């Protein structure tokens, strides 16, 4: 696509004044972000700071109390999750959400197939177009799984995978949606340093290969610093600092409320 190169500086996501309260309690307050295509944004902050809530607002799983979200110049503030997904936002969840009884392959195909409409009659009659489609989906899924080193577990039910594999499978599934924006909620949680590094390397790679825009919620500070071009720090639902990793690292407010103990 010739436009792809010119689009690199286009605004992909524009969030203004986003707020969400649960029974009067402000979980997110005045959150804003303007994301340019190709960026990797990191969101950090202590527990209960509202990071996952921000993701849930982006993907329509929660309705904001106030504010607006625009994705590719389309207002998605109150859109349902399925519509937002079809516009090109893929995500993973903090507490892993796989299709437990389905195989790894099934999990990935379930996402891949969203781009290819199937016709019920063709499926029932098992026409060659349908068979080819299924074959194509399967080979694409296998390739993606192999990329994340899951080729051994292709036919195992998702529920039977180890914790780290489940996390990786969830990333593969989100990626299979072929999204423009990928939201990763603690992608390395529960992995040992070695595995975490591998996943981060893969994230960078898919970012480059697929020209993806990514937002990562992470606790692994060194890794966030390494991979993100920009970082937002959330505390009590509000952005307390924002900027390049260096800037954030040296922000006194961040040190006080968040990094203090680690530093």
């Amino acid at each position, binding site marked *: 696509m010739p436009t792809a190169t010119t689009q690199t500086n286009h605004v992909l996501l524009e969030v203004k004044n986003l707020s969400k309260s649960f029974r009067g309690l402000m979980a997110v307050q005045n959150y804003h972000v303007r994301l340019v295509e190709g960026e990797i944004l990191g969101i950090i902050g202590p527990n209960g700071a509202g990071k996952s809530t921000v993701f849930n607002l982006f993907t329509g*799983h929660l309705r904001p109390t106030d504010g607006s979200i625009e994705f590719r110049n389309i207002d998605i503030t109150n859109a349902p999750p399925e519509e937002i997904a079809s516009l090109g936002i893929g995500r993973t969840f903090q507490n892993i959400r796989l299709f437990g009884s389905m195989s790894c392959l099934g999990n990935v195909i379930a996402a891949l197939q969203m781009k290819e409409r*199937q016709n019920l009659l063709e499926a*029932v009659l098992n026409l060659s177009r349908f068979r080819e489609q299924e074959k194509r989906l399967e080979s694409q899924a296998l390739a993606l799984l192999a990329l994340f080193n899951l080729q051994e577990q292709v036919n195992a039910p998702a529920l039977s995978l180890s914790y780290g594999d489940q996390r990786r499978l969830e990333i593969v599934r989100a990626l299979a949606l072929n999204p423009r924006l990928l939201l990763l909620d603690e992608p390395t949680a529960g992995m040992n340093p070695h595995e975490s590094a591998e996943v981060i390397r893969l994230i960078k790679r898919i970012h480059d290969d697929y020209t993806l825009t990514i937002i990562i919620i992470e606790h692994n500070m060194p890794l966030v610093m390494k991979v993100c071009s920009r970082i937002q720090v959330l505390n009590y639902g509000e952005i307390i600092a924002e900027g390049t990793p260096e800037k954030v690292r040296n922000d006194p407010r961040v040190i006080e409320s968040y990094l203090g103990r680690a530093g």
Partner: protein
Amino acid sequence: MKQDRSTTIVSLAGIGLAFLALWLLHAFGGYYIERIVIGVGINLILVISLNLANGFTGLFSLGHIGFMAIGAYASAILTLPLSLKSTNLPDLPSFLARTQMAFLPAVLIGGLIAMLVAFLIGLSLMRLTGPYISVATMGFLVIVQVVLTNWDSMTRGARTFAGVPEYTNVWNVWIWAMLVLYIVWRIKFSSFGRKMMAARDNEIAARSLGINVVASRLLAFCLSAFFTGVAGALWAHFITAFSPKSFYFSQTFSVVTMLVVGGLGSLSGSVVGVMLITLLSEILRNAERGFAIGPLVIPEVYGASQVIMAILFVLFIVFRPRGLLGDAELDVRKFFKREKEVAG
């Protein structure tokens, strides 16, 4: 999941064998066996279509027998001989009073009406989950029951709807059964089935992939209602006389039991479940009339078959809470392979 030629051949061979068995039964089995075989075929359609709705989407409907009733009444009204219509259903709307349809279109229309009703109620019901969907669909069953009982001009109310032509036979039932089995099997291994099962396993994740959960449940529910309606129509032309109370809770329990014994989500499980329960209940039904083993005489105890079935069912759930097959499928190829190994 892989589709290759050998599967097709095995499936074809299986279907061929099934029909050969049917022919043998038909030729030598007599009327009693024939009735059992027809009954199994109809139950197979009911259980498989219930599986499509309940096993694939995880929404446990207790109201499917309502669709069966709709299919049965619709096709019965359409095929009733005109002479009987004028005496038994004098208040029919004139276009119906003048129609006497052939079997196949009537069955299809019966299924379609059931599907239409499913669509209308499904639009709202498919948003419910857990025990609430069971309650709501059970409510639907009660509503169907009440409407059939009181819509005198169409259904004769609570009175027996008799004189339905006896069109159903072993052949058309089993062609339908194989067809339904095949279609649902194809759905299970297509994008439609994956959407249903994804939404069943994790609704939130499914929505985050862009799966329209309500739509995919609705598809399952409507298709399932269609097949259930077809089964109802076949049943109507098998039994030939019925009333609204023929389609109520005891029917519901028996179909649901077959489904759960086989395993929710497993089509081969449904087949096994239907056969097993049918055989077992036939044996027990005959045994409860009393029998003698040598000097030991067991007197007739009516109700004993239900009592024993109930105990067996509880025991079964204790040992296999997910049914015989869970949601896995019997793999015919694997079976043959192992046999070969043993033989070799």
